[in-house]
């Protein structure tokens, strides 16, 4: 005795198929709910991936060391010194010390504007590939060591200094705030940063040899740097190296004087922020699932009332209350599962469309976990909201149901 559970699925499909329009309307709530949840979760993952990629393109996998401004330190109280760089050389990183200061240029006769003068080693794009040359070249190591009066301009600086003209080959005339003048020959222009960081990342910066700033600036002190960028070598563990860098600076200067940060820790923060956003949006989308579930319950209750005869007949033919309950539960679950499947398919379509049209979303992500979760949740919604209608069907008295008026 007892029946094959697959039999119930077949019967569920038959009965739902027999009532296509109503089944479809009942599904709609679930379709929208699952669609919303799936799209939210996947869009969150795609956004995280997009930001992470942009960040990597702009900053690579690097560690930054600078004075701890939170603790009241500044470039003169906590400079980075030559001997610190020596100590860092032992780690699996490229050491790129940098220096910067404010500089002015004449935008119109008699009117001065500020931009940033940044001292770097030569051949920077080779040391840190996130810097890309658009036109011309970067100044060489030799030029840098010699402190030659050469410059590479950021995209913005080139536009500000030489509006409407090719900057490469020109001489940039710049003034320190104290008044001293420097003339730098422009040898190259950098590419603007890519991705979402392109908007706010392109500051007007003039790159020049560190040696030149030391030679000419009234404030810079020879042998001291403002900060150091440490791109990680392949295979190096970001967290571990970050701790090693921290230890070097703490052992030399004590706790709290320098701040050591890695792009990876920044990504971690980013991820937790998107996770919170995802959870919030997911919860809102979950509400629509609840509404969808109530819709299913409503339809199932109507269906039980309408099929009183059928239920009575099945009982007369030997169905137990348990089998009737199972039949209606499975019907509800099949209904929500089909709805869930449609929702996932719709979400997949939307995500494809978004990746194809919105530049920020570069990768298409619809993880198997998300799909599995969406379907599991739809099945659970069916089970939960099917319980009451199924119980009512099971409790039906066959005599009442079969009474012929």
């Amino acid at each position, binding site marked *: 005795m*007892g*029946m094959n559970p697959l039999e119930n699925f077949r019967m569920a499909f038959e009965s739902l198929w027999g009532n296509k329009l109503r089944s479809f309307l009942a599904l709609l709530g679930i379709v929208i709910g699952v669609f919303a949840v799936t799209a939210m979760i996947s869009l969150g993952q795609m956004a995280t991936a997009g930001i992470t990629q942009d960040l990597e393109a702009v900053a690579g996998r690097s560690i930054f060391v600078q004075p701890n401004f939170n603790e009241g330190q500044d470039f003169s109280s906590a400079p980075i010194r030559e001997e610190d760089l020596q100590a860092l050389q032992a780690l699996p990183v490229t050491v790129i010390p940098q220096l910067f200061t404010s500089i002015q240029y004449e935008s119109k006769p008699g009117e001065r504007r500020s931009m940033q003068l940044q001292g770097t080693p030569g051949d920077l794009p080779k040391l840190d590939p996130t810097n890309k040359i658009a036109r011309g070249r970067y100044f060489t190591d030799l030029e840098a060591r010699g402190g030659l009066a050469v410059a590479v301009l950021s995209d913005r600086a080139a536009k500000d200094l030489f509006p409407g003209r090719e900057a490469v080959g020109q001489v940039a005339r710049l003034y320190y705030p104290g008044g001293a003048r420097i003339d730098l020959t422009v040898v190259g222009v950098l590419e603007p940063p890519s991705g979402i960081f392109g908007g706010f990342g392109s500051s007007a910066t003039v790159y020049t040899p560190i040696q030149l700033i030391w030679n000419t600036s009234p404030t810079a002190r020879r042998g001291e740097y403002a900060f150091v960028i440490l791109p990680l070598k392949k295979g190096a563990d970001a967290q571990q190296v970050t701790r090693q860098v921290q230890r070097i600076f703490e052992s030399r200067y004590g706790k709290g004087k320098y701040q050591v940060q890695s792009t990876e820790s920044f990504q971690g923060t980013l991820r937790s922020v998107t996770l919170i956003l995802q959870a919030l949006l997911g919860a809102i989308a979950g509400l629509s699932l609840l509404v969808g579930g109530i819709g299913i319950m409503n339809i199932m209750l109507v269906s039980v009332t309408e099929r009183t005869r059928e239920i009575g007949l099945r009982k*007369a*033919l*030997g169905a137990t*209350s348990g*089998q009737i309950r199972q039949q209606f539960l499975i019907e509800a679950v099949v209904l929500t599962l089909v709805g869930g499947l449609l929702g996932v398919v719709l979400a997949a379509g939307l995500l494809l469309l978004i990746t194809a049209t919105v530049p920020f979303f570069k990768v298409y992500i619809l993880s198997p976990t998300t799909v599995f979760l969406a379907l599991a949740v739809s099945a659970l919604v069916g089970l939960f909201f099917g319980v009451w209608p199924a119980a009512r069907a099971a409790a039906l008295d066959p*005599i009442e149901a079969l009474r012929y008026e």
Partner: protein
Amino acid sequence: MTPVVEMRGVTKVYRSGSSTRTVEVHALSGVDLVIYPGEYVALMGPSGSGKSTLMHIIGLLDSPTEGQYSLGGEPVRGLGEAQLARIRNQRVGFVFQAFFLLPRLTALHNVALPLVYRGLPAAERLKRARKALESVGLGDRLDHLPSELSGGQKQRVAIARALVQEPDLLLADEPTGNLDSKSSDEIMELFDALHRQGKTIVMVTHEPDVGARAKRIVRLRDGKVADGGMA
């Protein structure tokens, strides 16, 4: 020989109304009824005399308020819901006045329906259903929906659905009540044939010429057996 149906003092009381004023309807009071295998019994009596109630109790769709009832020698008192369902499935075949076919299933699948609850594989169910339909002369209507069949054909499908169970007892509640006289005759001839094959049949009817075909008439009046309760 063990009777198929053995009832002693069966009473059925329906209570309805509010908590302050209940109304009691004695649908059956003290019914004694014995039916042996192979009998063809017509259950007759005026409307409201308790025919359907008695039929439901015989078919285990309802239980007596008082009295003893054994089906095939087995007392049914105290059996659980699932056990009653199993006995219904294996030993009782119902035929109703209003056919009660599932409108979206073909004749073949309607007939196979009781076997679903026996856990038989689909191929076996359909094979037996086809045979049952052929035995009632509908071998050429297997894939028709109920809406594509005449009243007489629908009732023959319903009879095939009862036969496919190979029950100890066929219960028919006014099976010709919804049919014209020609279809009625055909259905009654089918029951005659089933009786000749040795089937035990209990048929509710209030039409005298239908009742006349049965070999025994049990008359009910106000919930009591007026005549023919004992073989």
